[in-house]
């Protein structure tokens, strides 16, 4: 009898242990590292310039890590911004000094011929050219920097899309992954194409026409420049509005679909797997939540990286625009109309390029923010 009881206890314990699932705390760090490796997120830094990587290092975000991103303080950000502003203010200040000097020279030249229109006309053209050569040619590197930043953002966005798609799929949002990946690729390419082939040449054309119009006010070329300026502004505003609406709608629809799929999967695990169905369903939720955190981290890293690429250029262009406006105000004060118009057009050129760059950055931030905000299986 005793032997029978012992056998029964032994068999029961053996069966109980053999069907039990081992439970232990997972090493989330290793898990994250594996996912970052598998998704290709570790290679994202290769698409960033050394300057951007330097800024990220200053902020302590050189690696894709939730802990490191959380430690970024407002003080660090402001100190970096201060450094960028102080580092980049020299060239625009020099430009403003050159512009003011040119305006003063222009006024001196004009003062010699108060009643002689013919000589004044020739000197107006020469002084205008002098102003453009003195101010705009050195400033053009800032515009080239903006074009480079747009290309860098587009390249980084293209690299980030497959990474977020992998993480979205793993975090239980396959429909969002497919849907948003397609939309994001389309938007990245459209943005790059629009910025490089559409808006930027139009801004350049408008700037060139505006300056020519300032040199030859008789021809009223400024009217064409104004028309292009207004058209570009309207198109930029419409594109940003359309994009935001389109992506929001797409993410809402796809996350609803993912939510249905996720709940269906959990219900199936609960209903069809006996005894451990509930545990399986819960562990699936945990895995999905963990990958979702990783996806959010990658998204935020992307946003920080793009901001670190774009913000120095935006600050530089803004400083140039302010410098040109200040010199333009001096020209107005000294009644030098030609100089004032030329400086206004140069200022507009910087402002519009800046607007375009900010639009590209905002489109990236919105799309990455939406992807990061998609809840795991909703």
């Amino acid at each position, binding site marked *: 009898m005793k032997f029978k009881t012992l056998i029964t206890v032994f068999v029961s314990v053996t069966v109980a242990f053999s069907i039990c699932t081992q439970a232990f705390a997972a090493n989330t760090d290793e898990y994250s590292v594996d996912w970052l490796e598998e998704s290709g997120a570790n290679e994202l830094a290769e698409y960033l310039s050394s300057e951007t990587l330097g800024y990220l290092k200053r902020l302590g975000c050189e690696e894709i890590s939730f802990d490191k991103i959380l430690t970024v303080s407002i003080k660090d950000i402001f100190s970096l911004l201060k450094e960028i502003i102080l580092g980049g203010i020299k060239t625009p200040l*020099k*430009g403003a*000094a*050159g512009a*003011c*000097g*040119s305006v003063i*020279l222009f006024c001196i*030249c004009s003062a*010699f*011929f108060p009643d*002689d229109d*013919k*000589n004044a006309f*020739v*000197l107006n*053209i*020469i*002084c205008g*050219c*002098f102003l*453009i*050569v*003195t101010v*705009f*040619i*050195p400033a*053009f590197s800032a515009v080239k920097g903006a074009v480079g930043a747009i290309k860098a953002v587009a390249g980084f966005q293209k690299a980030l899309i497959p990474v977020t798609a992998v993480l979205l799929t793993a975090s239980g949002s396959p429909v969002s992954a497919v849907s948003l990946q397609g939309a994001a690729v389309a938007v990245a390419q459209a943005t790059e194409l629009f910025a490089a082939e559409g808006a930027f*040449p139009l801004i*350049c*054309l408008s*700037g*060139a026409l505006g*300056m*020519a119009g300032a040199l030859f006010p008789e021809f009223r070329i400024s009217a064409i420049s104004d028309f292009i300026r207004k058209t570009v502004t309207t198109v930029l505003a419409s594109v940003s509005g359309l994009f935001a609406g389109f992506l929001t709608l797409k993410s809402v629809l796809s996350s609803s679909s993912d939510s249905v799929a996720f709940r269906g999967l959990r219900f199936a695990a609960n209903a069809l797997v006996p005894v451990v169905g509930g545990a399986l369903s819960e562990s699936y939720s945990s895995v999905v939540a963990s990958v979702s955190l990783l996806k959010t981290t990658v998204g935020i890293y992307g946003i920080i990286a793009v901001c670190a690429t774009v913000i120095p250029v935006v600050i530089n262009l803004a400083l140039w625009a302010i410098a040109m406006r200040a010199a333009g105000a001096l020209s107005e004060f000294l009644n030098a109309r030609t100089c004032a118009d030329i400086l206004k057009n140069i200022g507009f050129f910087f402002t519009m390029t800046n607007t375009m760059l900010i639009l590209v950055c905002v489109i990236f931030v919105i799309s990455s923010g939406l992807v990061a905000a998609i809840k795991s299986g909703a």
Partner: protein
Amino acid sequence: MDTVKIAFASILTVLLYALVKQLKAELAPLVILGGVAVIFLELIETFASVTGTVSDMIRLAGMKKENVGILIKSLGIALVTQTAADICRDNSCSSVASAVELAGRVGAITLAMPMLQSVASLALGLIT
């Protein structure tokens, strides 16, 4: 620049002109030319004395010396041709005056050609 000296020189030139015109009218324009030359020489001396200060200002403003040179030379051409044209007009030679003015404008534009070329290439670079 001694403004008083220039004022005296100009008054003396006009008085001499009036006197010579009475005695020998064909030599009167030469008196004017002489007076103008004296005034210009005085101005050149003044310009030479402020060159250092202007150079410092140009350096501070970050402007290219060559471009400032073009601008100042154009201004000089315009001033010289205007004076010459005025002398021609005083002697009832308006066609010569117009020719001198035209030559001055062409000279100034030719002088500024490298600057115009850079602006044109910049504009082309912006458009294409």
